């Protein structure tokens, strides 16, 4: 039973903003479960609410109503600091704009989540170097973000997301700022991560990118439009990769 438990369980969540006395629904009614080692793409045009959904899934924001359970824990009743702890230990973020600290070297950027979980310096460095090697940046440890290419920066961000061995990796338009060849490299990296047992949630508006996932959830006007497995070409896809 415990093994069957989804990592993410959301039920009828909504997110409402009040602007000038008027209620704006970013999310109206979304329910879904995500289980360990799934590779999910959340798709939708801009304004569909997919970013809001991602922020809620990532515990960066809280829903206005509904149920959100992360590993069986009720997220809505958590304090700021408890949410920070979930983000720190259970979620690895990969952003479209990388969101690296400009003044810190790549290895320092990768170490950062471990700083907030209290891991000692030597162990931090060792683990960061390991992850950097695994994303192919073993020779870029001391480079600052502005000394790296876009693809390399995104690899640093992925390394940073991986370093805490999170329950899910949440990627928001991870190829949005990259050229198509670099984008492909990054997607291959995600594929390998999934193959080695990670759970990946990809938020995108590009069909090409979404097709890499094994399950595609389409969002429109704050509701789930469709939620289907993507079985079209797994065999050929993995060959192509």
């Amino acid at each position, binding site marked *: 039973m415990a093994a069957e438990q989804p990592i993410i369980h959301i039920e009828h969540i909504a997110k409402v903003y009040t602007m000038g006395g008027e209620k704006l629904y970013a999310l109206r009614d979304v329910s879904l479960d995500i289980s360990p080692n799934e590779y999910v793409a959340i798709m939708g045009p801009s304004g569909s609410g997919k970013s809001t959904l991602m*922020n809620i899934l*990532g515990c*960066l*924001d809280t829903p206005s109503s509904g149920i959100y359970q992360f590993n069986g824990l009720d997220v809505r009743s958590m304090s*700021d*600091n408890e949410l*920070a*702890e979930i*983000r*720190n*230990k259970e979620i690895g*973020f990969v*952003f479209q704009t990388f*969101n*690296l*600290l400009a*003044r810190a070297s790549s290895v320092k950027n990768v170490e*950062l*989540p*471990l*700083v*907030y*979980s*209290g*891991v*000692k*310096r030597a162990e*931090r460095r060792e683990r960061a170097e390991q992850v950097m090697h695994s994303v192919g940046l073993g020779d870029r440890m001391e480079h600052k973000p502005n000394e790296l290419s876009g693809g390399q920066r995104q690899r640093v961000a992925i390394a*940073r997301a991986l370093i805490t061995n999170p329950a899910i990796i949440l990627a928001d338009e991870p190829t949005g700022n990259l050229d198509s060849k670099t984008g492909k490299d990054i997607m291959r990296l995600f594929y390998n991560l999934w193959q080695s047992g990670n759970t990946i949630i990809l938020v995108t508006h590009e069909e090409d990118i979404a097709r890499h996932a094994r399950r595609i959830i389409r969002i429109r006007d704050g509701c789930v439009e469709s939620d289907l497995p993507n079985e079209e070409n797994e065999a050929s896809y993995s060959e192509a990769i």
Partner: protein
Amino acid sequence: MKISEITESARFAYESLNSNKLRSLLTTLGVVIGIVFVILMGWLLSGLDAALEKTVNVIGTDMLYVDKWNWSGGKNWRDYESRKDINLAQATEFCRRVTTPEVAMPIAQKWGAKIQFKNQSISGISVQGVPAEYVLTPGGAVTDGRFFSKSEERFGADVAVVGYNVANTLFPDGDALGKEIKIRGHKFEIIGVVEKRGTFIMDFIDNQTFIPLQTFLGIYGTSGRSLSIAIKAGNEENLANARSEAIGLMRQIRNNQPGQPDDFSINESQMFREEINSLRMSTWGVGIGLVSLSFFVGIIGITNIMFVSVTERTKEIGIRKALGAKRGAIMLQFLMEAAALCFVGAVIAFAFCSTVIAVVVKVFFSDSDYLSSYVPPQLLLTASVVSIIVGILAGLMPALRAARMKPIDALRYE
């Protein structure tokens, strides 16, 4: 709070200051001024204390002086004025009968005397007629030559022991010994020079000049003159006993009736503590005013720049929060930045004060032995602690704002 977060915060503070050197420097100016006042005030007060200690030692911590006048005087001036003089007979009787102290002796003095050497003269001198035992009191500390002997006193020899200032003014070359000076037309041979004892509290003390009591009485006469009695208790433990014996004996000699107040005063070195304390209070008053004013200005400046720093780093705060930084961690980062800013101010202030104090002492107070020419080390600690507290106060509001930011809003900030 995790150690890794603390070291990270320190790094953060350093980077922030380092990347905005000029801005940090200008911001910290208010704090620099505040700390400068703290240090200068502390330095002055420690100078005051040293001067007090020296003064107390000059008078002697185990010394009592029975006098018509009360040294701390002031309000009851007329009461003292109306007291009968302490005459030679009373003083002599007292010294003969007293048993508790090590030694007691009569002293006669003449204020505003003039000393001549050839065609030079120095006025405003206090000429003291003292017995040979005076050498046992702090006032008898001769650096050059000797004090006069018992037989010189008895025969009323024309010898003088001059104060440091007298010797220095009339004989700048330091060859006062053996010279013949004139006091009220009488010739005296200088046989000793008293060591420098005065501070700004008692600078007149170096103008004292001592001659044998008999000689003094011969020149100035005994009438219309109130004598003092100097009592050396021997040690501070004996001071209270000596004091009560002196009061009892003096009342007896002066024929004070029971219920009648003493018609004399017992003066001692402790009285100078009161004078110093009022000086200390006014120094504190001025100092505290200036310090609070400049810290107020300094805190406003730093709070302001910290708000700017928080706004500039909104995105970074968002990233850190997304990666799991808790409120306390963000708070600590900005508090440390503000504290570091102020600490830099303290360092600058310290360097500035060290230079100023060294120069001022060298140029204006080179012969002072109570004003130190460096910043007392405990002030360094005080200044550092104060600066860090000021920094934390100044950083509190901006740090709270940063800590309370919603991660999603901070991340979206461009």
